[in-house]
């Protein structure tokens, strides 16, 4: 199943906005989109969660893979604008200790 991902560019940073749900049905499609950007050399990526209402471990897995690959290239993956329900599962999983999470996209860009 496909996923809609909006893309915006702010100077050298690529901002990705997945829309609606990121779950086992479309995680593979999302992984393809993100990793295509990583392979193309994007080193600063923000995933803005403001359009996302649901994520499961299948979607979180893609972000972990991307964060590892980007860090290996000395780049940075940051996440922003999470709904509190989503923020909570990033805390339970300990992802908030290894991937930078900001309250807003502006804060992520300024970091």
């Amino acid at each position: 199943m496909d996923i809609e991902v909006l893309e915006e560019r702010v100077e050298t940073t690529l901002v990705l906005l997945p829309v609606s749900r990121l779950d086992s049905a479309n995680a593979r499609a999302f992984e393809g989109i993100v990793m295509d950007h990583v392979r193309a050399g994007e080193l600063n990526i923000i995933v803005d969660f403001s359009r996302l209402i649901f994520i499961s471990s299948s979607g979180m897995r893609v972000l972990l893979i991307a964060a590892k690959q980007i860090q290996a290239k000395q780049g940075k993956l940051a996440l922003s604008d999470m709904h509190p329900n989503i923020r909570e599962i990033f805390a339970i999983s300990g992802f908030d200790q290894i991937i930078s999470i900001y309250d807003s996209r502006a804060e992520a860009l300024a970091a």
Partner: protein
Amino acid sequence: MCERLKIELNAKLSELRTLPGPVEQFGEAYNLGLKMNFVINLALEELITNTVIHGQFDNLGQPRIYIDLRVENQTVFLVVESDGRPFDPTQDTHPDTTSELDSRPIGGLGLHLVKSQADRISYAYINDRNRLQLEYDIVPE
């Protein structure tokens, strides 16, 4: 108001998207709130995905999954039954949630999320089905 929500589906990932709508309607009927709706949807997604990917169905043909959601005494009861060989998710080991990014293992988080968010959880294998019951206490938002 619906007394309980019962859904049967084939053990296929493509069936997962049929669940959020009825779960949301059930939650609205009981005024469960957005947080509980999210938690129930996450539990269903993780448990069913786990069953579809890791379940051992032998020669069952098309295995089925049976969902039963009800509210009793300020508690949400979510029962998920599935065909297949016994698998007790409550015995699953605790995943690594502390190591650094470059050494953090990928995967194994789904059941951990489900168990972390439930107030009580119990497993039984009855009539050739895995039966997992999750309980969530209703806390006013």
